């Protein structure tokens, strides 16, 4: 017999992979089939040979490299390794011979040179801002500001309450006189107001200075023609009321002691 329809089951029989029924049936068949019996003997010995086969061990060095390379698949790289990689890449980039990189490198060196040179040879020439030392205000200083504001109220009232659009020569003379005397003290008062660091007083003094300049720097004729504008300026800015409020504020400051 050259072949048997059951022969392909022999390997499974040897390897004990058949169900109990099939195994029993095949065993009965083998007892009566010379071909399968001979084949089974051969298969058993081949099976034994293969079962006992000892592979050549994998070279240790190769296995180590293999494991190390595999580890990169699941092990996140440590911080220092990343840093080393960045430095390595940077060095590679720096040593590159690509024309664009060479130009960029030269520009970077030039820029660094300029910055270093500027720092050493041309130190900053920006003038230092010397802040005025703040003087401590005395009671007299506050009184000085208060007197100034009272006097300004007199002028402002005269302007605001004037019904005549063209003031008389005497009125102009009086107003001009008061304005000039106030203007004379303006810088001094402003300095003290800044020292007091009171924004309301500072704003009022700025407005007042404009009015004083309008009156004191002009000819009588000019004042007369533009008197209406000056009056509007005083009224629109509520300068009389502001002056009164300021006086109260300064009195309060005085009573609280400086």
């Amino acid at each position, binding site marked *: 017999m050259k072949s048997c329809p059951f022969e392909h089951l022999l*390997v*499974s029989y040897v390897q004990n992979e058949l169900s109990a029924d099939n195994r029993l049936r095949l065993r009965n068949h083998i007892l009566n089939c010379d071909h399968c019996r001979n084949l089974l003997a051969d298969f058993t010995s*081949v099976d034994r040979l293969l079962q006992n086969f000892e592979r050549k061990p*994998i070279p240790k060095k190769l296995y180590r490299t*293999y*494991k190390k390379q*595999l580890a990169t698949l*699941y092990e*996140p790289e440590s911080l220092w390794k990343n840093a080393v990689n960045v430095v390595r890449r940077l060095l590679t980039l720096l040593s590159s011979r690509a024309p664009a990189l060479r130009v960029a490198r030269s520009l970077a060196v030039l820029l660094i040179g300029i910055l270093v040179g500027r720092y050493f040879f041309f130190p900053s020439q920006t003038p230092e801002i010397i802040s005025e030392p703040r003087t401590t205000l005395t009671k007299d200083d506050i009184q000085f500001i208060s007197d100034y504001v009272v006097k300004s109220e007199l002028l402002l009232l005269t302007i605001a309450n004037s019904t005549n659009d063209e003031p008389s020569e005497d009125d102009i003379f009086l107003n001009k006189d008061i304005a000039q005397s106030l203007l004379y003290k303006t810088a001094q008062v402003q300095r003290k107001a800044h020292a007091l660091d009171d924004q309301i007083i500072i704003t009022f003094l700025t407005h007042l200075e404009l009015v004083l300049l309008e009156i004191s720097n002009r000819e009588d004729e000019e004042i007369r023609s533009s008197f209406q504008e000056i009056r509007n300026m005083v009224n629109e800015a509520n300068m009389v009321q502001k002056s009164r409020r300021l006086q109260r504020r300064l009195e309060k400051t005085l009573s609280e002691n400086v």
Partner: protein
Amino acid sequence: MSRLTRESDHKLVQSAKSGSSAAFGKLVKKYQQKVLYLAFDLIHDYEDAKDIAQEAFIKSFEKLHQFEERAQFSTWLYRITVNLAMDQHRRRKRRPHDSLEDNIREIERQKTSEQAEEGRRSERELQTSAQRDEIEKALQNLSENQRIATVLKYFHQKSSKEIAEVLGCSESTARIHLFRAVKNMRKHLKGIQESL
């Protein structure tokens, strides 16, 4: 494979699928040696086997989300490895010059190492080595499917069902591949069998 191992593989695969690199790391550590041996058993070159095993893990990592767990993870991984090894084997066949050079290099390397070791080997060891060479030669003469079936059965203790899953065929076809493989090997190994 025990139920416990299968369950633990399932858990690890689930974790790896949800992005745990530690879980995938455990799977790699568990199968790295087996996969390397499988690749070597199929193509008989350590360097190529190493590359194939690495590629198999990379591929499994990339395709893990596609793995539906109809088979065990190990079977799926073995299938990837077997496919890669067979591709490499076919590529080698298409480049006979390279393969010839490789073979000459391999033979020379083996000869040198054999000469160096010969003095230290006992007679028994030499006999084992000769047997091993004969078995390897007999394996090389088998067809692709027969070789895969034999390697999986005898060197990786896989059942006919698992072999069928790796080969992508029915269980009975896998048994026939195995039967033919043993039948063919029987002829090549006759001499050894007689000497035993």
